C-alpha cells in the first residue's frame, strides 16, 4: 500500500486526536464498598477485589550478580518491537545495527559485525544462539514476538558456571507468557514508517484440567528505506552517486507454541526472515541485489519432579536448527552461500536440600552439534562436535545474613578440548533491604565454526588452530530495595580475557587468539514506582576496555545512559512512556569516529480504548536526531551507517474474549 509518508502521519495524528477526545468510552471504577478492614470478616475479605500494588519486578535468574529486568508492562508502555529495542533500554547494553543484523554489546565489548555469541540468549531456558556463528538473533530475525514476552532478565558478568560455553559477558534470559495471560484470541495489526506492516494472531488459554496452551503466528513486511552512502559517491556510474533504492526490504514469519502442565512443558518455535542489505558487504557490487535469509527452529521438552522431600529433578531436552542463505553479486557474477547448523542436547539438573545450611545444585548435560555446515563456492565444510558437561554449586548459609556460593562447571568438547569455569561469591545483607555481592567468576567460549573454518577465497581465510577464549571477572554489587517500590543498584567490576578471539582487518580477515584485554567499569541503576503509577527506570554505565597494547576497544562507548519514565494520563485512560538512550562516541578498528548521541522515543498507549481494543502509538527518534553506528570492517568503504530518523509505529490489539 504505497502511500506518501506525510498522509500516513496525518492519519495517525487524526487517530491520536480521536482517541483523546473519546474519553466517554472509559468507565471509571465505581465506589462499591466502604469496607472497614479492621472489622471485616474473612468471608467479606475473600469477596473483596484488590488493586495490586505496582511493584518492581524481582529476578527469577538465580545468580549472585547484577540483574536488570524489563517486563511485559514495559514492552507495552515503551512500544518495543524487537529484542534489540528491549535490550537497548537496559543497563550497560548497546546495539549496533548494520542494516543486516543487530549486534549486542556489553561489558566493554561491542565489536560490530562480530556475532553476539559472547552474551548467551536463553528463551524459557533454551539456548538460542545458533551453532555456526553463535549469533543470537535480536531483530526481526528473532524467534519470538515481543508481545509474547513476559519478561527479559539481563544477568551481567560471566555465567559459564551455570550455562557453559558462550555465557561469556552475560546472559539474556527471556521468559515467555502463558496462555492464561491471553485468555482467548488476540489479533494485533500494526503499521509503521518505511511501509512496514505486521499482523499477529495469538490464542492462549488455561484449560479446565489446568493445562496451559499458547499458539501464536505473525508476519511482517517492510519495504524499507532509500539510503545515501557518501563512500560510494565516487563517480562510478554503477554506484549512482551513492544512492540505493529498494535494497532494504525485509519479511518475516514466526510461529510459536507452548503447552504446559504443572510439572512439564513442551514448546516449539519457528522464525524466518529475509533481508535485503544495502551496504554491499565484503566488496560486493554496490546497488545490486544483496540478500540474507535466516531461518531458526526449535522444539523443547521440560519436566520437573520431586524425587524426595529433599531432592528435585529438572530434565530438559531440545532440538534446534538454523539455516542461512546469502546471495550477492561480484563483478556481475552471482555468489550463493549457505550454512546449516543442527543440534540437540539434554540436561538433568538436581537441587538438593538435605542440609539446612546448604542448597546444592548439580547436573550433567550433553550436546551434539551434529551439523555445522558452511558452503560457499570456495569452501564446503561440515564439522560436527559433541560436548559433555557437569556442574556443582553449593550455597552455604554462614550466618542469618551471610551466604557463600561456590560452584564449578567442567565442559569437554570433542574438537576444542576442555574448560573449567569456577565461581565464588559472597552475599551479605548488612542491614534489612541492603545486599552486597562480591564475586569472582571465570567463563569460556569456543571458537565458532565460522571463525575457524569459513573462507570466501579472497577476504577471509580459516584458522584451524583457534583455541578457546576465556574471561575472568571480579565484581562487587551493592543493591538496596525498599517497600517493593524502589531499587538502587551499583556495581563495580574488572575483567580480563585470555586468548580473546579477534580478527585481522578487512580485506584479509583471519581470526586469531589475541593477547589479554582488560576492562573495568561501574554501573548504576535506579528503579522507582512512585505515587499515581509513575514509573522510573534509569541507568548509567561507564566502561573502559583496552587491548594488550592499551588501545581502546573498537565500537566500545565509554558512557551509556538510559532513562525511562512512564505515567498515566487523563484519569488512567492513557499511559505515556518517554525513553532517552545516550551513547558516547565510539571508534572503529580502522579509527573512524562516530559521535555520541541521545535518542528519544515516546509511546502513548491505551487499554480498552473501545471494548476489547488496545492501541499504542510509538514515535522513535522523536527529535529526528541524525546519528550513526560504526559499520563492521567488512562493509568497507562504508565506515559508519546512519540510523533511522523519526519513525512511527501504530499498533491495534483486539481481544476476542
Amino acid at each position, binding site marked *: 500500500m504505497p502511500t506518501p509518508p*506525510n498522509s500516513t*502521519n*496525518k492519519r*495517525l*495524528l487524526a487517530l*491520536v486526536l480521536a482517541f483523546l477526545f473519546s474519553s466517554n468510552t472509559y468507565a*471509571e*471504577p*465505581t*465506589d*462499591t*464498598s*466502604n*469496607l472497614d*478492614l*479492621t472489622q*471485616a*470478616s*474473612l*468471608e467479606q*475479605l*475473600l*469477596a*473483596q*477485589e*484488590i*488493586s*495490586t*500494588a505496582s511493584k518492581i519486578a*524481582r529476578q527469577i535468574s538465580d545468580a549472585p550478580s547484577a540483574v536488570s529486568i524489563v517486563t511485559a508492562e514495559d514492552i507495552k508502555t515503551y512500544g518495543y518491537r524487537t529484542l534489540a529495542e528491549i535490550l537497548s533500554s537496559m543497563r550497560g547494553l548497546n546495539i549496533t545495527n548494520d542494516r543486516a543484523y543487530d549486534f549486542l554489546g556489553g561489558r566493554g565489548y561491542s565489536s560490530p559485525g562480530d556475532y553476539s555469541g559472547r552474551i548467551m540468549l536463553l528463551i524459557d531456558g533454551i539456548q538460542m544462539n545458533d551453532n555456526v556463528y553463535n549469533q543470537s538473533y535480536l531483530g526481526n530475525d528473532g524467534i519470538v514476538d515481543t508481545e509474547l514476552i513476559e519478561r527479559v532478565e539481563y544477568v551481567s558478568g560471566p555465567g559459564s558456571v551455570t550455562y557453559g560455553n558462550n555465557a561469556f559477558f552475560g546472559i539474556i534470559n527471556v521468559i515467555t507468557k502463558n496462555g492464561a495471560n491471553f485468555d482467548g484470541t488476540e489479533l494485533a495489526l500494526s503499521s509503521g514508517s518505511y511501509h512496514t506492516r505486521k499482523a499477529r494472531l495469538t490464542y492462549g488459554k488455561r484449560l479446565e484440567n489446568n493445562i496451559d496452551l499458547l499458539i501464536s503466528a505473525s508476519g511482517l513486511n517492510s519495504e524499507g528505506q532509500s539510503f545515501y552512502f557518501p563512500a560510494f559517491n565516487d563517480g562510478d556510474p554503477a554506484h549512482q552517486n551513492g544512492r540505493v533504492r529498494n535494497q532494504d526490504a525485509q519479511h518475516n514469519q514466526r510461529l510459536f507454541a507452548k503447552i504446559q502442565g504443572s510439572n512439564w512443558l513442551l514448546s516449539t518455535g519457528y522464525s524466518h526472515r529475509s533481508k535485503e542489505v544495502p551496504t554491499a558487504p565484503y566488496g560486493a557490487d554496490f546497488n545490486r541485489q544483496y540478500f540474507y535469509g535466516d531461518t531458526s527452529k526449535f522444539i523443547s521438552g521440560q519436566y520437573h519432579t520431586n524425587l524426595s522431600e529433599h531432592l528435585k529433578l529438572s530434565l530438559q531436552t531440545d532440538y534446534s536448527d538454523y539455516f542461512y542463505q546469502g546471495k550477492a553479486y561480484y563483478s556481475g557474477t552471482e555468489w550463493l552461500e549457505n550454512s546449516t547448523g543442527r543440534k540437540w542436547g539434554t540436561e538433568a539438573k538436581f537441587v538438593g*536440600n538435605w542440609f*539446612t*545450611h546448604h*542448597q546444592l545444585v548439580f547436573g550433567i548435560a550433553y550436546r551434539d552439534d551434529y551439523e555445522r555446515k558452511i558452503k560457499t563456492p570456495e569452501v564446503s565444510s561440515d564439522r560436527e562436535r559433541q560436548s559433555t558437561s557437569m556442574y556443582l554449586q553449593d550455597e552455604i*548459609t554462614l550466618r*542469618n545474613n551471610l*551466604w557463600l556460593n561456590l560452584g564449578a562447571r567442567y565442559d569437554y568438547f570433542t574438537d576444542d578440548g576442555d574448560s573449567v569455569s569456577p565461581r565464588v561469591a559472597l552475599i551479605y545483607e548488612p542491614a*534489612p*533491604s541492603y545486599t552486597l555481592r562480591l564475586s569472582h567468576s571465570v567463563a569460556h567460549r569456543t571458537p565458532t565454526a565460522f571463525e575457524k573454518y569459513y573462507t570466501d577465497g579472497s577476504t577471509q581465510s580459516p584458522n584451524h588452530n583457534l583455541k578457546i577464549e576465556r574471561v575472568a571477572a571480579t565484581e562487587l554489587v551493592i543493591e538496596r*530495595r*525498599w*517497600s*517493593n517500590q524502589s531499587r538502587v543498584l551499583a556495581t563495580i567490576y574488572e575483567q580480563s580475557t585470555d586468548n580473546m578471539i579477534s580478527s585481522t582487518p578487512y580485506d584479509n580477515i583471519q581470526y586469531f587468539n589475541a593477547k589479554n584485554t582488560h576492562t573495568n567499569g561501574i554501573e548504576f541503576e535506579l528503579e522507582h514506582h512512585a*505515587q*499515581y503509577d*509513575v514509573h522510573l527506570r534509569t541507568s548509567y554505565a561507564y566502561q573502559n576496555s583496552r587491548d594488550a597494547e592499551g588501545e581502546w576497544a573498537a565500537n566500545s562507548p565509554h558512557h551509556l545512559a538510559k532513562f525511562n519514565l512512564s*505515567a*498515566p*494520563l*487523563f*484519569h488512567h485512560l492513557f499511559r*505515556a512512556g*518517554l525513553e532517552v538512550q545516550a551513547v558516547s562516541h565510539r571508534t572503529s578498528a580502522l579509527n573512524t569516529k562516530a559521535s555520541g548521541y541521545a535518542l528519544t522515543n*515516546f509511546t*502513548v498507549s491505551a487499554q480498552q480504548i473501545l471494548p476489547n481494543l488496545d492501541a499504542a502509538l510509538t*514515535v522513535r527518534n*522523536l*527529535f*529526528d536526531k541524525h546519528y550513526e553506528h560504526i559499520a563492521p570492517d567488512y562493509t568497507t568503504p562504508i565506515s559508519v551507517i546512519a540510523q533511522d530518523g*523519526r519513525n512511527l509505529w501504530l499498533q491495534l490489539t483486539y481481544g476476542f474474549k
Partner: protein
Amino acid sequence: MMRRLACFIVALIGLPFTSIGFAGPLPEYAMKAAFVYNFTLFTQWPTLPNNTLRICTLESDTLKHELEKFKDNQPHGATLLISRISNLDKIKECQALYLSEEDKKRLPVILALLENAPVLTITDVPELIGKGVMIGIKTESKRIVFEVDTQAAKKSNLYLSSKLLSLAKSVY
C-alpha cells in the same frame, strides 16, 4: 506535520499527572494485612504469654505499616503487638510470622530456628508456599485466596479452626 506531532506529544508530557482515588478495589497490602489479622482469629495457640499476641514481619515495612492499623483490636482478648524482627533468634517470641519476598533466601534457616515452635507462619511468596509455611496467600482474578498446610500447623501445636480450612482454596 511531524514537527507539530512532536510538539503535541511534548505538550502531553507537560500535562500534570492526574489521579483519582477510587474506593472500589482495595489496596493489596491493606487487604493482606487484614487477612493476616483474620488468620490469627482462627488459630489457637497453646498459650499466649502475658496475654499478648505478637505478629512479626522480618523485612517488610509495607505490611507492618498496614498491620499497625489493627493495634486497637483484641484477638482472643489479648493485646495485639506488631513487631519487625531483625534478629532471627527472637522469632520464637512471635505468635505469627509473615514472610515476604526479601525473606526467601532465609526460609530454610527460619524453619530450622523455629523448630516447630508454636508460630503461625504466613507468606505471599509463591515459591515459599508448600515448603513448610503454614498459610500461603495468593492473588487470583483480583481476589485474595489462601492455602493451608495443616501438617505444618499440627507439628507446631497450632490448632486451626475448621472454618478457616473450609474457606481455604486448598488444604494439605
